[in-house]
C-alpha cells in the first residue's frame, strides 16, 4: 500500500517540521544566532526530533496486549513462534489516516503438518475494542500443502472525535493480533514465521471532524507516529474554503466587469 500524501498534509508536515526544527535550533544556538540557524535549517532537511523511524524492525512479537511489541508505520515486523500462539504488535494511527495491516504467515514445513489450518488477523483500538475491516482477507484457510498465508485488514479512516457510544476508530495505539483460528491438534506447537506490516493512507480532510481527544487512546503504551501526534488544528478544509473564497472574489470581480462592459463608456466625458 503506497503511503500517498495529499498536498495539504504535506504542507502541514513541512510547517510542523519547521516549527520543531526552529524550536530545537533556538535551544541550541540561543537568541543571538537565530538568523544563521534558520537559514542553515531551511537549506538542509530538518533532522527529525525522534530518529525512531530508523529503529531496527522488531523481530519478536508480544503474547498479550500488555506485552505487544511496537511497530512503526510502514515498518515490517517479523517473529518466529509456535503455531497456536497469539502474536501481538501495536502501531500508532493519527486522525485522518486509514491504517492497513498486512500479514504473511510462513507455515511450518508441509511434511510435518496433518491438515488445513485457518489463520486470522484482528485489529483492536487503544481501548482494546475490536475494529472491523473495511476490506481485506482478515481470515484465510491454508491447505495442507500451502507454504504461506497472506492476510490483510483495512480499517475505517480514523476520526479526531467520535461519540462515546460509537466504536469509530480514534487516533491512538492500534493492536494487531495474529493467530491460527483452527488447526489440527497434531499441528500445535510447530514453528512458523510471521511478517506484519502496518501502513497508513492519508485521507486528507475528507474525514476531518470538529472536536478532538485530549489524549490519544492507549497513550500509555508510548507509541506515537514519527513526528508526533497532529495538533488537530490543521485540516485541508482550510485550503478548500480559502480557495473557494478566492474563487468567489475573482468571480465577483468578473461579474462586476461583465456588467460594466468594455471599459468606460465613450459618451461619458473625461474628468467627470
Amino acid at each position, binding site marked *: 500500500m503506497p503511503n500517498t500524501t495529499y498536498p495539504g498534509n504535506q504542507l502541514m508536515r513541512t510547517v510542523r517540521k519547521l516549527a520543531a526544527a526552529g524550536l530545537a535550533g533556538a535551544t541550541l544556538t540561543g537568541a543571538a544566532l537565530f538568523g544563521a540557524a534558520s537559514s542553515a535549517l531551511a537549506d538542509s532537511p530538518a533532522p527529525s526530533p525522534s530518529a525512531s523511524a530508523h529503529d531496527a524492525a522488531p523481530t519478536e512479537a508480544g503474547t498479550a496486549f500488555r506485552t505487544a511489541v511496537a511497530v512503526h508505520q510502514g515498518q515490517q515486523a517479523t517473529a518466529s513462534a509456535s503455531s497456536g500462539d497469539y502474536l501481538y504488535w501495536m502501531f500508532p494511527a493519527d486522525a485522518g489516516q486509514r491504517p492497513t495491516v498486512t500479514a504473511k504467515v510462513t507455515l511450518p514445513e508441509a511434511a510435518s503438518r496433518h491438515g488445513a489450518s485457518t489463520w486470522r488477523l484482528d485489529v483492536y483500538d487503544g481501548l482494546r475494542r475490536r475494529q472491523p475491516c473495511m476490506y481485506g482477507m482478515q481470515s484465510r484457510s491454508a491447505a495442507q500443502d500451502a507454504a504461506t498465508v497472506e492476510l490483510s485488514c483495512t480499517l475505517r479512516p480514523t476520526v479526531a472525535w467520535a461519540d462515546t457510544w460509537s466504536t469509530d476508530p480514534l487516533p491512538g495505539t492500534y493492536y494487531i493480533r495474529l493467530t491460527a483460528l483452527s488447526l489440527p491438534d497434531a499441528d500445535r506447537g510447530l514453528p512458523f514465521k510471521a511478517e506484519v506490516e502496518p501502513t497508513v493512507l492519508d485521507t486528507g480532510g475528507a474525514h476531518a471532524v470538529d472536536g478532538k481527544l485530549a489524549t490519544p487512546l492507549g497513550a500509555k503504551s508510548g507509541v506515537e507516529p514519527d513526528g508526533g501526534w497532529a495538533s488537530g488544528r490543521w485540516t485541508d478544509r482550510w485550503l478548500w474554503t480559502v480557495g473557494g473564497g478566492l474563487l468567489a472574489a475573482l468571480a465577483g470581480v468578473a461579474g462586476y466587469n461583465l*456588467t460594466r462592459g468594455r471599459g468606460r463608456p465613450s459618451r461619458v466625458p473625461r474628468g467627470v
Partner: protein
Amino acid sequence: MITRKRLAAGVCALVATFATGILPAAGTASAAPQPDGQPAQAAPKVDLVLDVSGSMRTADIDGKSRMAAAKQAFNEVLDSVPQEVQLGIRTLGANYPGEDRKVGCKDTRALYPVGPLNRTEAKTAVATLAPTGWTPIGPALQGAAEDLKGGDATRRIVLITDGEDTCQPLDPCEVARDIAAQGIHLTIDTLGLIPDAKTRAQLTCIAEATGGTYTSVQHTDQLSGKVKQLVDRAADPVAVPVATTGTASCESAPQLKPGLYTDREKFAEHRSYKVDVLPGQELRASASIGMDRQTNPDYGVMLRAVTVHGREIVRGSEAGDGRTDLISTGLRYPKAPADDSDDKTPETVCLQVSNSFSAGPGVKTDPGLPVELAIDVVNGPDHASDVASFGLGRGWWLLGTLALTGLVAGLVWGWISRWRIAVWRTN
C-alpha cells in the same frame, strides 16, 4: 522555497523571543513518555523445569538422546541469559529410580535455586543429570511456583518434558490454573520433546491455563532457540497488574485508581468496580477476559459504566466464537465540565464487567476466568460544535457554489453601480 525560508526564520525569531520562558516547560512536558511511569522493575524470575524421567533416554532427537539434546540446549541458554534475569533450574524424576509410585511422584527438587546466575555452577549441576524416574509434572509445577515466590517481578516457568504426567489423579493442568489464580503474574510455557497426542493435549492445556505458549520440539537447535526466546521474553519490562476483587453490587465495589488490575470472574458472573471521575475528565476503561480452559464455542463480554443510582452511561460489548486467548472491550466516558470551574466534586462511576461464557459438562468453573481491567482517567475531549472540522467545507461542489455566489454578487453589484451612474447622469 523562499516562502519556506521566511517561514522558518519567522518561527525561529518567534521561538527565540519566548525561548527563556517556554523552553523549561516544554522540556518537562516531553521528558517522560515512559510507559506507565513505573519505577525500576524488579528482576524477572524464570524457573526452568526439566523432565529427567527414564523416557528421556530415548535417542530420537537429531540422533542423540532427548537428555543429551536438553543438556546441550541448557548450556547454550545458560550462556545467553540476560544479566537481569534471576534463573533457577528444577528437575522432575531425577532421583528415584524405584517402582514405588508414591515415592516416585514426589521426586522433584530445585537443582539450582532461583537467583543471580552463576553460569559455571549451573552448567555443572546440569551435567550431573541422568534420566531416572517418574514424571510428576503437577508436583514439579507446584515446587516451581514455590521457588518463584516473593517480590513483585514477572515470573515464568519453562517446562520441558517428553511425556505426560504419570502421577494422576493430580491433574497438572488444574495445578497450573490454580497457580495462575493465585494472582502472582505467573506464566507457564511448555515444550514437548517429540510429543505424543496425550502429552501434547496436557502441555497445551497447561500453557493455555496460564497464558503461556506450547511448542513441539523436534530438533536440538529448535529447543535452545525457543528456551532462549522465552527467557528473553521474561526479561522484557512489562506493566504488572494489581490483583483486586470486584463485587456483585456497586455499593460494596472496590474503589480503583487509574492502573492495571486483574481479577477472576466465574462463568456468567458480573463484577463491579468504582472509579472517581472529576468534571472535565474522561474515563477510559478496557476489560478483557481470558479463555484459560475449554468453554462452549460462543461467548461474549460486556463492560458498562453505570452511575451510583444505576443509570447506564455507556457500554462496550463484544461477542465472538471459536478459538481465542481472550475477548476484550472498552469504553470512554467524558464527564462534562462543571458550570462552576471551582467545582471539584468527583463523580463515582461504577464499572461492571460481565461475561457470557459457558462451560460444557465436566469443565471446572472454579477458579473463575482471568479478567484484566485497564483504567485510565485523562482530560476530557474538546467538544464538537459542528460535525465538520471547524465548520469548514471541502470539495469541488463547495468551490463551485462559492464561485457562483461570488459571480452573482459581482453581477448584482455591477448592475447596481451602473444603475447608480445612470441615475446620477439623468439628474
